[in-house]
């Protein structure tokens, strides 16, 4: 086999921090090569160097035998590289098709042929079974749908070497399988895939070889068929990680969150959230399963007060909060991990201390209501950083430089530490490493056992299956079915999520709404 891409001695420093420390990586033509490592190990940094977005401080990149000196990503794209970014690089105010064809627009008489562009994008989406509306504005889409756009964008460019940086973090199993089909199709065509993920079963399923990074260095190289998930974890973390969640049966108490007939309309079209009824009790974890774009995002926005609903009521602990702002939802007992950590969950330019203080700023110990106690803010941040293992130099640094998983930990740490009666967690482990998943899952269960009501939204079915005591399936804006955890399995949920109630063979005790 020939070597397609080879990097040797890559070094990248950010001030005192060494993000890549003499990294060597060798990728064969036509293989799927996994790059794994804990949050902050330097995976994204390495990928962005291979893609020409960052210049290494030292090291060589050789692509198909020729040494490359990228001045920018444009050079790399010209050389046949493509990348799906972990932190999406999309224009939020443009439509899906505009984002996809950007830089490679089909033209007609020198003008962009909009019809043709939209048609091509629709055809591409159709061919790879990625559901998106080419004319939708990206900023209004949920994170899961934006992920599809990011993938489409890379596919449209028809790259020889495709870098996928955590492309499945918010995909559902069906979509993930769809992506795997695409990957197989591409490698059959002798294209090369670099695949970054934290999901071990994906690595075992699709990749040929694995390079493991730890603390910015390569610590191991393996052939997938000759290794196991356990061994990879050990290489990444240096310890064994418990992948199953231990939890006792739930002990539901009083209703904490209740929604009646909740509706979110769209301009003209049919409602995105359609007369949803739900009740979450103290001491239980309720999971919402569903393919991204079926109204989960809007439902959660309406439940949390980020969006004014067009009908129905929401109450928390008996307080009607339907038309109230987030502040009053939080007063009534809400903590909330939003799916979009970068635009909602944090202020990237603000320090970790400031980010972690949000929501605590009006109460002791961080303040007396009007004056902020800066020492308390600092020690609050230090405690959380320590407890959740956020990899950051100091709590005074802006969180914008954190790796994806570490940024996620900042949000999760803050919201969990509210110890609120109600926790709404949207994709809480998006992009975090196995060790941190274990920890966060443990914390969510502890939250429940403490008597908290937890509403969990996740594209990751295994997460829902592992944590939820009760599962609601959302399809087309409605709660299509509700089933107890005991009766939920991947297959049933998968069918329900596709709207196929009849095929799902629901047994008694399970309601199809």
């Amino acid at each position, binding site marked *: 086999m020939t070597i397609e891409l080879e990097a040797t001695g890559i070094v990248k420093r950010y001030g005192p921090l060494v993000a890549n420390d003499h990294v060597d990586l060798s990728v064969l033509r036509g293989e799927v090569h996994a790059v794994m490592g804990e949050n902050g190990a330097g995976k994204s940094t390495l990928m962005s160097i291979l893609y020409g977005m960052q210049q290494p401080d030292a090291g060589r990149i050789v692509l198909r035998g020729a040494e490359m000196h990228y001045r920018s990503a444009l050079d790399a794209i010209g050389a046949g590289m493509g990348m799906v970014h972990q932190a999406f690089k999309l224009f*939020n105010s443009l439509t899906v098709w505009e984002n996809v064809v950007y830089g490679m627009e089909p033209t007609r008489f020198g003008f962009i042929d909009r019809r043709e562009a939209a048609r091509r994008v629709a055809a591409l989406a159709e061919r790879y079974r990625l559901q998106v509306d080419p004319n939708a504005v990206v900023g209004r889409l949920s994170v899961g749908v934006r992920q599809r756009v990011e993938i489409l964008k890379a596919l449209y460019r028809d790259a020889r070497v495709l870098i996928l940086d955590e492309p499945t973090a918010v995909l559902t199993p069906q979509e993930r399988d769809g992506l795997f089909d695409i990957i197989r199709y591409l490698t059959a065509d002798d294209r090369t895939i670099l695949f970054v993920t934290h999901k071990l079963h994906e690595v075992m399923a699709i990749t040929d070889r694995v390079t493991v990074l730890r603390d910015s260095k390569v610590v191991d190289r393996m052939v997938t068929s000759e290794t196991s998930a356990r061994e990879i974890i050990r290489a990444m973390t240096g310890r064994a990680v418990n992948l199953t969640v231990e939890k006792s049966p739930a002990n539901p108490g009083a209703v904490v969150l209740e929604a009646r007939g909740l509706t979110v309309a769209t301009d003209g079209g049919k409602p995105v959230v359609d007369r949803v009824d739900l009740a979450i009790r103290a001491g239980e974890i309720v999971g919402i399963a569903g393919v991204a774009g079926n109204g989960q995002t809007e439902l959660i926005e309406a439940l949390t007060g980020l969006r004014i609903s067009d009908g129905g009521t929401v109450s928390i602990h008996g307080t009607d909060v339907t038309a109230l702002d*987030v502040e009053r939802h*939080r007063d009534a007992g809400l903590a909330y991990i939003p799916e979009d950590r970068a635009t909602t969950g944090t202020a*990237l330019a603000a320090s970790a201390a400031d980010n972690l203080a*949000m929501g605590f700023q*009006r109460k002791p110990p961080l303040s007396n209501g009007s004056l*902020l106690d800066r020492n308390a803010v600092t020690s609050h941040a230090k405690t959380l950083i320590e407890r959740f293992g956020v990899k950051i130099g100091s709590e005074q640094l802006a969180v914008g430089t954190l790796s994806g998983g570490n940024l996620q930990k900042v949000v999760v740490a803050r919201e969990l530490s509210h110890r609120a009666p109600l926790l709404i967690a949207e994709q809480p482990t998006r992009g975090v490493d196995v060790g941190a998943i274990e920890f966060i899952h443990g914390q969510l269960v502890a939250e429940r056992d403490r008597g908290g009501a937890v509403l969990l939204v996740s594209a990751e079915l295994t997460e829902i299956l592992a944590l939820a005591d009760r599962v609601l399936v959302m399809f087309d804006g409605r709660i299509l079915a509700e089933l107890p955890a005991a009766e939920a399995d991947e297959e049933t949920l998968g069918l329900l999520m596709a709207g196929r109630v009849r095929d799902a063979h629901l047994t008694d005790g399970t309601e199809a709404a």
Partner: protein
Amino acid sequence: MSERSVRTTRLPQIPAVPLAIGIGILIGGLLVLASGGDPIAAYREILIGALAPANWPNTLNWAVPLVGMTLVAALPLRGGMVNLGGDGQLVIGGLVAALAALYLPLPGPLLITASILCAMIASGLYASLAAWGETRFGIPMLISTLLLSYPAIGVASYLVGFPLRDMATGLAQTRMIPDAARLPVISGPLNIGLILMIVVAIAVVFYDRRTVGGYELRMRGLNAKFAGYGGVRLASQQVRVMFASGAIAGLVGAILVLGSLYRYQDGALLTPGYTWSGLMAALLAGGAPLGAIAAGLFFAGLQTGGFAMQRETAIPRVLTMVLQAVIILFLAIRHGVGRKSS
């Protein structure tokens, strides 16, 4: 966009400021040279005019309203909001202060306090009108603050031009305010307005650094969606901040009227262009109060120096305005470049 790509530096890096000032001085010098003047002499006069101990009172006196208007712009800017209505708020403050001083039947110190408070409240309310318009009806403040200035200026001009005009002089101005309403003098042109402004500046810096409100405002400026999600009440915050911003403008108006002009005179508050110099200073610092105050002081020095230079040499004081503009442009370029490469 997301995560990494949004990282922009708000404050220019330290070396950028001296660089921009250096380039500004160079270009200004070339301009003087081209028009047949002596740049060295010009700059010497500016420096002496601004910084020689004998001229400090003048510089400070000019700095009081300029730094005041800097804070007017900086406070909302810290939260990502823009108040372009400084002129209108300044005029309302000045007029209300003059009217209160003329017509309120109060003795000395009380009269001063009452006049100042009336001015601050009137301007504060006028500014919060724009905030209310945006939170309630979605009228962008960027537009409404600017537009609301025109009726304020127009009405004030009409009032002192006709019903309230001082018939003794031929000008559009009110009568002189009574002695009791005049701000006590510290020395020369300096009055206790200076002290009031120092107190306000300290209060703003303290608010920004130490208070819950300041924290929430900063977070809003960095990411309004995050602030809203975190439980900051954006609408009431906007109204409150605009009230405070307008109130400072009202205070500046009152200080000018009660401390230097002793009457409200049509146009007198606006001719020096404090609002716009202040806005530029605030923009330079990205709304950070201390930086904005420093920039405001620098502009005040530059402008007072300009008067001195015009007096001592044949070079018109527009040169200092050119300097100011060039410096800002260069800092802005640095900003733009920094943003692109990140």
